[in-house]
């Protein structure tokens, strides 16, 4: 669905250099801190910015030429003009999208209590987030590109949105999603693959199964750390009790060092360790 190879973009001192692939039927997450390059990567894929190098293929075409009927997009900071109401832009969507599902749109708007006659600029951030998702999933898109779709939502609304995405995926097994979020718990139960981006570089790319099964955080005293076989350690961080270290071979350490404390890998821990931890 998306194949971005070695895309390059320079903004002053910031340099994006990354490769991302989103296969058919897959939910891929792009996670990273604010300013890590998530939105820049999304904009490059969507042809909102011109890249300085690399190659992007989306739905088998270039970002300039791909069929926009087949994608649904949520951008973290952009929507229809705030002066329009939902009722105003319904005929716009109906006219632009060949497969626009008006009834589904209205039913979802009602479900999420989105007023049809209120200007978007007067919507709360949560209402805007829901509206963006509804727009993205109501024209039978094959691919969703969602930049921070749950930003500004409370826990209940976030779960509702995630359920909408699961339903969207279950309707057609070839559909794909590229999603970014800084709320890692959203992604843990949703994604198949995960890219961790930091300073414009991909630090980690794993399937979520591997991440949750094989990655772990080892809590070590200085003595335990000294005795440890370090060949499967990725990052370390100095702690008051000694060291926290990230490994991608949890089983190895669980079997060979039963006395050490092992915490299962979470996306947050991986981000923190990969981004801020010391390399070994």
């Amino acid at each position, binding site marked *: 669905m998306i194949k971005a190879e070695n895309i390059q973009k320079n903004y002053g001192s910031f340099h994006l250099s990354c490769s991302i692939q989103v296969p058919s039927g897959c939910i891929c997450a792009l996670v990273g801190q604010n300013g890590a390059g998530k939105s820049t990567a999304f904009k490059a894929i969507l*042809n909102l*910015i011109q890249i300085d190098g690399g190659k992007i293929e989306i739905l088998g075409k270039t970002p300039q030429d791909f069929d926009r009927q087949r994608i649904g997009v949520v*951008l973290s900071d952009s*929507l229809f*003009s705030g002066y329009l109401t939902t009722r105003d*832009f319904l005929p*716009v969507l109906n006219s632009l999208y060949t497969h626009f599902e008006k009834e589904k749109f209205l039913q979802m708007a009602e479900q999420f209590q989105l007023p049809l006659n209120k200007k978007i600029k007067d919507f709360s951030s949560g209402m805007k987030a829901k509206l963006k998702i509804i727009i993205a999933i109501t024209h039978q898109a094959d691919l969703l590109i969602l930049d921070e779709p749950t930003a500004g939502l409370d826990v209940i609304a976030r779960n509702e949105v995630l359920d909408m995405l699961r339903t969207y995926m279950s309707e057609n097994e070839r559909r794909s999603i590229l999603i970014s979020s800084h709320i890692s718990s959203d992604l843990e139960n949703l994604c198949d693959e995960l890219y961790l981006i930091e300073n414009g570089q991909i630090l980690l790319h794993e399937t979520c199964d591997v991440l949750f099964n094989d990655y772990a955080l080892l809590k070590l005293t200085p003595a335990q750390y000294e005795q440890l076989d370090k060949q499967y350690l990725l990052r370390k961080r100095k702690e008051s009790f000694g060291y926290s270290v990230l490994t991608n071979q949890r089983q190895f350490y669980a079997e060979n060092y039963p006395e050490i404390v092992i915490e299962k890998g979470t996306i947050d821990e991986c981000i923190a360790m990969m981004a801020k931890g010391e390399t070994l």
Partner: protein
Amino acid sequence: MKGLIIKDFKLLMMNKTFFLIMLVICGFISLTDENDPTFIISFMTFITAVFTISTISYDDFNNGMPFLLTLPITRKLYAAEKYVFGMLTGAAVWFFSVLLVSAVQLFSFSNVQLIDILCTAVINLFISYLILYLIIPIQIKYGNERGRLVLFLVVVITIAMSYVLSSLIAESVNIRNILNELTMTPILLILIGLVLLGYYISSRISIHIMEKKQY
């Protein structure tokens, strides 16, 4: 393009109260001012041109442009639609203004010939199109805030150039004679040529700006 035209129409309709007030004022002026009945036509057509341009600012409000460009439209289509929308709404308002003025003149048994009104009205329409072609690329390139400043500079330069040109014409007996002998037909033909040329150049520039613009 239909979707974009609907969007712009909805944005334009936000100012419907303003338009209605303008229409009432214009109706009143056309009833009372017998000296220049075509003023209403040029005024309304110009106001509409300015308002159609404002849809570019509305699109950009709260960073709306990136989202628009993820919809099934191309950058080229976005730019082209601004011209189509501007010309369509301009022509529609122009048409109703002409009807209004003609009706007032007809019922007030004025001495002004309808054909004269129509000729002046056509020239007004073409001039408003030329203004449209001047503003659209500036607005697309610079947005609302900087666009105003650039537009101000362009207007000042245009006025200065017109002044220099008219001074030259005033000094040159030959040119004055040629202009005095011109009838309506060549003036209209020159204007049609200018409008077509203006459209071609302006739309090329706008499309180029859109295709290079980064969001």
